[in-house]
């Protein structure tokens, strides 16, 4: 395991990291559709992945990763160019929020960040906290506000937390090479505007987009992903009718036609990061 290439899954609570892993594992293991990356042989321990995959197959909510249940996923991947063993923790989004608020990280996170050779950064359209300013109050002048309100870290906008998480990872990394980052907008089926995934991030998380775009140390790609393919309530019937489970998913990159291949973000992490 210690020789495996380390990747990081980053994203706050409830943004779909585990759902993605569940659906990804199914596509890799079942081989139902052609994928850019394949798993050429099984890793020794598949308990966790099979558990979350079973929930995904049964059109159930994939269990949220709790702080006590953080798992490390290992995959043996294969592309036309290479074979590679990768490992990445499936972290609790709550844990990453706590990391930001407390400014303390577990030693294992620090170790993983130091060795990280790729990042999957998740955002969810329904889980974005915005910086809502108090509107101008005409006529109140300087009265009405007090200094009594105590700042709450959990009130911080989503994009600020994500920028800082990326800054922390950048700071901890021991490698100077450009870091491949796949930005994944999950629940892409909820995004009804005709936007590319990057345009979505640029409009809804502009601070994050600016930070990522201006960083010469990151090699970026944006993906819109729906690991479930729709709402498990409203779309249950339609999803159940799809006979090949791998074809439930939706993956969009830039303005390319919609694909089904959840390994496309992994392909980006495995690609040459360039100069």
């Amino acid at each position: 395991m210690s020789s495996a290439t380390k990747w990081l899954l980053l994203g706050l609570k409830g943004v779909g990291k585990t759902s993605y892993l569940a659906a990804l594992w199914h596509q890799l293991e079942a081989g139902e559709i052609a994928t850019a990356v394949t798993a050429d042989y099984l890793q020794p321990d598949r308990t966790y992945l099979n558990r979350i995959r079973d929930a995904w197959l049964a059109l159930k909510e994939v269990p949220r990763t709790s702080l006590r249940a953080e798992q490390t996923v290992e995959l043996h991947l294969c592309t036309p160019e290479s074979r590679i063993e990768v490992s990445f923790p499936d972290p609790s989004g709550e844990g990453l929020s706590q990391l930001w608020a407390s400014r303390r990280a577990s030693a294992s996170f620090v170790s993983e960040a130091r060795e990280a050779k790729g990042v999957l950064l998740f955002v969810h359209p329904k889980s974005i906290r915005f910086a809502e300013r108090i509107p101008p109050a005409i006529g109140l002048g300087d009265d009405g506000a007090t200094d009594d309100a105590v700042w709450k870290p959990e009130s911080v906008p989503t994009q600020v937390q994500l920028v800082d998480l990326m800054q922390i990872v950048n700071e901890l990394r021991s490698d100077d090479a450009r870091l491949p980052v796949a930005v994944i907008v999950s629940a892409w089926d909820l995004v009804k505007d005709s936007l590319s995934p990057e345009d979505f991030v640029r409009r809804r998380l502009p601070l994050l987009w600016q930070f990522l775009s201006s960083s010469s140390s990151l090699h970026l790609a944006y993906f819109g992903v729906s690991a479930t393919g729709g709402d498990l309530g409203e779309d249950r019937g339609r999803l159940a009718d799809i006979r090949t489970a791998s074809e439930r998913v939706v993956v969009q990159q830039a303005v390319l036609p919609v694909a089904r291949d959840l390994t496309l973000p992994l392909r980006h992490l495995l690609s040459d990061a360039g100069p």
Partner: protein
Amino acid sequence: MSTPCTRDGCTARETGTCLEGFASPEECPFSGQSAKPTEAKSDDPVALQGGDALTLDEAAVLCRSGHTKVVLLAGPKGSGKTTIITSIYESFQEAPYGGYLFAGSQTLVGFERRCYLGRAASGGATADTGRTSANAGVQFLHLRVGRLNSDAPATNVLIADVSGEIFRQVRDSDEAQRLLPFLERVDNLAIVLDGARLAKPTERQLPRNDARSLLRAFVESNRVHPACRIDVIFAKWDRLDQESGESKSFLDETRATLRKACTENELSFFEVAARPEAPSPPFAFGMATLLREWVDPPTVVAKPVLSLSDPNKIRREAERYSSRLRGSAILEAFDVQRY
């Protein structure tokens, strides 16, 4: 005694079953409190960079890391210094600003603390900015910005957030200048005048005089670098009567007064409304121009060579040079490349 768990979806209080699987509420780190460091793992937590405003030493380290501009906003308490700083940060949260991309900040926590009273999350009815405590000493907020559509390296902007109380002391006493040990390194010294007070005939003399006294105290300290740009900021510009001839005349006289107080440095005037009281002008009015002044100031035509016929000027230049030599230890800690 059990205390309520704050985790979303946890029904431990009702059912006794903990969402996280802890055997008792006492074991659960969320019981009765908001998020705190988890110790669910056996490995010890590692402290990360704090994210709050930088100390002088931390700012010096950052200066050594690359191209850095140092800005000092000076003015009495309540004049709007901190709101000016936070309005730039808040503007970047919406889009690239002033021709720049946000490229990072080591003080995101510091910014968020200062923005909080202006956000709906604070529960306030009107927007406010917390007062900068004199006890906090000199702190710096950090922005890293890159030019839009450019491959040029990003620029660090360190903005000193200093209590108005310190500037009152600086205005009153040369001794107080020691409270600003980085003064020689400042690229932009921004003197802030409170537009809300300028708008009131019974109060307007005070901000004008404060600005003039403060500017004079800085200039005559011989610690302001000749290349340091002086930015006079009329803050809360929305409070001033834009149509009144009397108001315009007073402001013109104020500009003339301040120009007389500083003839050696490049001096410019800016009108800003960082957080207007009405929907118009827009939020952060005038701040984009100010940001460009700090990051990419216009090229300055060289000032005339010192005249040998003016012994007073020769004496002042000599004192300024020796003062900079005395401050060289500070400069060495604080400076790699000035520009």
